């Protein structure tokens, strides 16, 4: 199942500067696993050792916030990776 993943700019160094990627998977866990295979290390910036979304990162499927990695992702969905920004 193919979806679009939009990556917050603090993580662009993992994706060679790309802000929009194609992801595959039927759940957030699968989509992030797919990203990790292609961009090693990126998942750890979003997810901790207990598989929890880090508290300064938020994941949305379309406009709905995902509370955990079991959130379903359907074909054509967009997964948004949002990071707390500190700049002012």
């Amino acid at each position, binding site marked *: 199942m193919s979806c679009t993943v939009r990556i917050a700019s603090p993580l662009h160094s993992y994706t060679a500067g790309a802000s929009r990627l194609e992801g595959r998977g039927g759940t957030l866990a699968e989509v992030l696993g797919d990203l990790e295979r292609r961009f090693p290390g990126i998942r750890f910036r979003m997810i901790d050792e207990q598989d929890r979304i880090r508290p300064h990162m938020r994941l949305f499927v379309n406009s709905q916030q995902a509370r955990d990695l079991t959130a379903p992702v359907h074909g054509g969905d967009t997964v948004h990776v949002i990071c*707390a920004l500190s700049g002012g």
Partner: protein
Amino acid sequence: MTLSASERARYQRHLSLAEIGAAGQEKLKSARVLIVGAGGLGSPAALYLAAAGCGTLGLVDFDRVEVSNLQRQVLFDTGALGQPKAEAGRARLAALNPEIRVVAHALELRAANVRAVLADYDLAIDGSDRLSTRYLVNDACVLLGRPLISAAIHRFEGQLMTYVPGRGPCYRCLFPQAADGVVANCAEAGVLGVLPGVLGTLQATEAIKLITGVGTPLAGRLLTYDALELRFQEFRVERRRDCAVCGDAPTITAPCDPQAPPRAPQDGVRRLTPRALHALLVPPGGAAPPLVDVRERWEYDTGHLRNAVNIPLGELPQRIAEIPRVSAPVFICRSGGRSMHACTLALAAGVASPANLEGGMLAWAADVDPAMPVA
């Protein structure tokens, strides 16, 4: 609070708007808005609120105007270089609109003073450049029941959310916890100069709406802005019942200063002060540890320790094999946050006994080498 003849002339375009009119303008005249951070966001927010006739504006900032600020902080001109931002901003706003009162707060907001400062204002605009200040201001606003219009920027990207007491989530509901250093700020990552112009102006817009009661505030919604794609997006955010400050059983009942840097997140990460690292590096020719500078290339190019190799944090997972596993390397960044993250990654990859330079190159410049340029 009625309008004078000169005020009616000045605000005529507002008076012509049925949604604002004299009643709305009088509300603006009575309003007291605190702007935290006279930087990229605070500049346009302050200028527009002053021009709009917001009766009392407070400017909180303890920095001085630096030349690198002028690319985006339009509250200041070249003649203000070196002046305290709060004071220079107050003078600029007073010149723009002598009908209003501007209060300069040239101080650092802390747990000890945030309540007293905020108590004199009806709402706050957060344009600070530190996550710790963002949480401090959020918590104080929740505890004092003040609306908060919070925005943040990074490179080409911005975020905005409005907290209205009793009507939606607070900043901590969105991001329960974050630490400075994990996320690069403008100085570390760079920022498109016009980007805070967009977000700061939106903050002023939200303030005017809340004060006058027109429109729908951005409560319970996170707005993001991507300048490169010229794309705005909106996400629903709900109040968390387990939020530490606005939840059903809050654990934060008074503003608190950020805690001291946490202990190493995993056993095996050593912490080195700048002086301790300096002692390891001299005399030359000794068994100095490898130095890995995980800042971005341009930061490294501005100034780095001799023999330090540059592997930006984002490239570290792919390049971890470049670091010998038994070398006990020292990881370095600007202030110690990214390098601690690098230590964690190195440990996970099997690198033995990584060390973190506490306080990063900023601390090195302060404690060891004042001539070291730090971007």
